[in-house]
């Protein structure tokens, strides 16, 4: 795991911490929308690499939101 992965995990978990205070139904869509809106495809690709390889260190809410996060093309 690189320092870069660490940073992305921390960033995703920070967003999860904010979204976790929202009503249940808004949490996962809120997190996914935020990442879709603000994360460049490279960052999302790295996030998915992390998710696909077992998601160690990612908050459960990130995992719940994962299906709603847009997978970068190519």
């Amino acid at each position, binding site marked *: 795991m*690189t320092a*870069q992965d660490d*940073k992305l995990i*921390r*960033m995703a978990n*920070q*967003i999860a*911490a*904010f979204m*976790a*205070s*929202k*009503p249940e139904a808004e949490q996962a869509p809120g997190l996914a929308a*935020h990442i*879709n*809106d*603000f*994360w*460049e*495809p*490279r*960052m999302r690709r790295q996030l998915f690499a992390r998710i696909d390889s077992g998601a160690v260190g990612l908050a459960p809410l990130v995992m719940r939101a994962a299906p709603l996060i847009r997978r*970068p093309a190519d």
Partner: protein
Amino acid sequence: MKDFILPPDRDMGTPASRSPTMVTLEIDGFSVTVPEGTSLMRAAAEIGIAVPKLCATDTLEAFGSCRLCLVEIEGRPGTPASCTTPVAPGLRVYTQTATLKQLRRGVMELYISDHPLDCLTCAANGDCELQDMAGAVGLREVRYGTPPEAGAEVNEIATHFRARNTGGEANPDWRPKDQSNPYFTYDPSKCIVCNRCVRACEEVQGTFALTIDGRGWDSRVSTGAADFLSSDCVSCGACVQACPTATLTENTVIEIGTPERSVVTTCAYCGVGCQFKAEMRGDELVRMVPWKHGKANRGHSCVKGRFAWGYATHRDRILHPMIRERITDPWREVSWPEALTFAADRMRGIQARYGRQSVGVITSSRCTNEETYLVQKLARAVFLNNNTDTCARVCHSPTGYGLGQTYGTSAGTQDFDSVEQCDVALVIGANPHAGHPVFASRLKKRLRQGARLIVIDPRRTESVEGPHYKAAHHLALRPGTNVAVVSAMAHVIVTEGLVNEAFIRARCDWDEYQEYVEFIADPRHAPEAVEGVTGVAADQIRAAARLYATGGNAAIYYGLGVTEHSQGSTTVIAIANLAMLTGNIGRPGVGVNPLRGQNNVQGSCDMGSFPHELPGYRHVKNPEVRAIFEAAWGVPIDPEPGLRIPNMLDAAVEGTFRGLYCQGEDILQSDPDTKHVAAALAAMDCVIVHDLFLNETANYAHVFLPGSSFLEKDGTFTNAERRINRVRRVMAPKAGHADWEVTQMLANAMGAEWAYTHPSQIMAEIAATTPSFAGVTYDRLDQLGSIQWPCNDDAPEGTPLMHVEGFVRGRGRFIRTEYVATDERTGPRYPLLLTTGRILSQYNVGAQTRRTANVAWHAEDVLEIHPHDAETRGIRHGDWVRLASRSGETTLRADLTDRVAPGVVYTTFHHPETQANVITTDHSDWATNCPEYKVTAVQVSPSNGPSDWQKSYQAQSDQARRILPAAE
């Protein structure tokens, strides 16, 4: 050159009255109707009659001391002063009668008897009100004392201006000039004790540094200290501007002479956006004088805008393009075409090899809107990606997010005039005295009138207490706990029934409000519950919340102490919630007001500098928005968000981001975790720095394109009030091109076919594509002086107050704000919390202010540490100390002070030698990646001098700044 024609700049003698009641009277036989409360002097000025005066000026309250402005009023005895006599219905006033003429001559004769008659060699020659008035009253002789004419009979009287009497003895009443201030000279021998300087310091600036010492003959302007520099004077220049004689004079006027023309332009320092008259002689700038009609500053200024413009002509300016193969090579001066071709080839080469997304831009919040627009256009229309960001990333990006989510627009809600109607000012994470001094003066004026103040800041800053103001509540919270404190205030407002339910029902989403109440009313948000975390006594939070909710018009002003945290965006949301809960939005005197850092940080955000949004804050994912720009630019727009600055740097270290065009920003010094920034820059194949100076980032650059100062180009800046102010060119670009031209040349070298010949054409493109700018043109800016966006068909003259009828997004949205502690925590190795900020005399990384005489006030960054923390570490005041975090370490001198609480240390980041950002970490705001500058766990220990990093940095910096001599 098309100069802006100045609107009437006449001195009306006394301030305007705002009374709605009108009064009609007669002056010298002419009828005049003016608001009740207007002085006779001003009423006369309204019909073009200038009553002679010395102590009166329309920026100050009437004083009535000079006895020159006397008038006669039919049916009233005596000769009252017109400056202190208000109008009344039916008065018949005479300003020029035999009695008045004689009295005025007598008064002038006395003034002149104690004034040196060295007019021809005096710096105020031609710009002296005493001289003007001597002419106006027809003074033809001075019967007291020694007449100046040769051969006259010696008739010596006591004076303040002769150093020696005719017998050669020293005159005890004479005082030498005070030249301690680097920007102006105080010459007591020219003083007529009109009190204008003293009143300006009190009324306009609010520092109260000056007074009149002594009485009668002994009366003197005094700073109460040895000289101006060592006094409380903050060098704002208000006294110099107010002085009617040569007693207080700008040193540049003494050196150069009086100016011959003036051009109205806008200051290039902070986000207040003060308008100035650039007073010129030829293409030499003589002085910058704050413009009375500037709507942000209303004729006031601070030491930076008023005096610290010498950087614009500093010898360190680089005036030729330079390139180098590798960053270890010395720089080579080349022609513009060679530099641009080199840069374009490299950028194209990188894209060919590593893909379209491998390059990007950083737009400048110091450059104009037009320049910023072109730089983001370069990324979007030429690089064909969205890799554009701006330094707002590291300051106010959470404002954009937080206010956008809650209110629907990424900007402050008020104009600065609004402060005149506020009853409670809540200042959070900002020290306007240092960062936004002209706004601070306007706030202090309101506080002196009785408005109350709440300050939330870990330090006891100058904003907490000063002459004639003191915060009702200072919540000295532990750094990093803003959300806990502001949420606790909201908890108090909700649970104590202080909400403005009518406002919420009318203006906000009621269901969301209910959900929010359920959240915020929970006892875990109570002040008592968070006391242990925040370090603020619960009763203080309760009292502050009650005052904010019930004290009348309550306005929030906040700064980077809010945004530069891992929960920066959450705090902005919490602030927005507070204003909605209490209905403090949508009218004068209230609102949510981010104090923007740089002159055009608002504008650079408006102009689409962020990687996820096109100009006007419209997300790139929206096809209808992309369609507008695709049509205008004739290229497809990438629908995916681009990289933000920290993401660019991460991608650079990783190897996928390899080329950067960085205009007017010094990311190496200003961004956090310097070592990481340096590593990222060093990993790139092409770094293009476009700047006035070889800044720190340029140490890692391959191409240097010389920039132009704000004096050298036309354009607009947008200040913190959304006010679009004109910047006007007063001299030719020293390096040959304005910055917008350079960007255009680079774009064209990469194959674009841009053909702008004037920034007004760029503004026309902005207006055509961006609804909130639809009505903005240079002609209209000239007409109106400035325009606050949105400016369109609905608001052709702009919008001073936002969200008046309804929120921009429709209904205001309450969002929950859970406090989440930052990951940056103190522990045994790093037991103290470092927070950072700025000082009045310096600006940001200091690239400008360090190249001016402002270093007289702040020659180095120091570390503020509480005496207890210092004592346990064996540190004395002035000692070198080592400041270390998990990111790095540096050394600086210690300043022992109880302004900071035990456990907290503080420093500024104005000097590259200190490199405070070696210490700061890569933690950032959850929503925007705005770095957490304000909280770093550190240790402080005694030291002998510069750290190894500082030495190696200096060596690298010296090496990287070598420039080969130009080929003969």
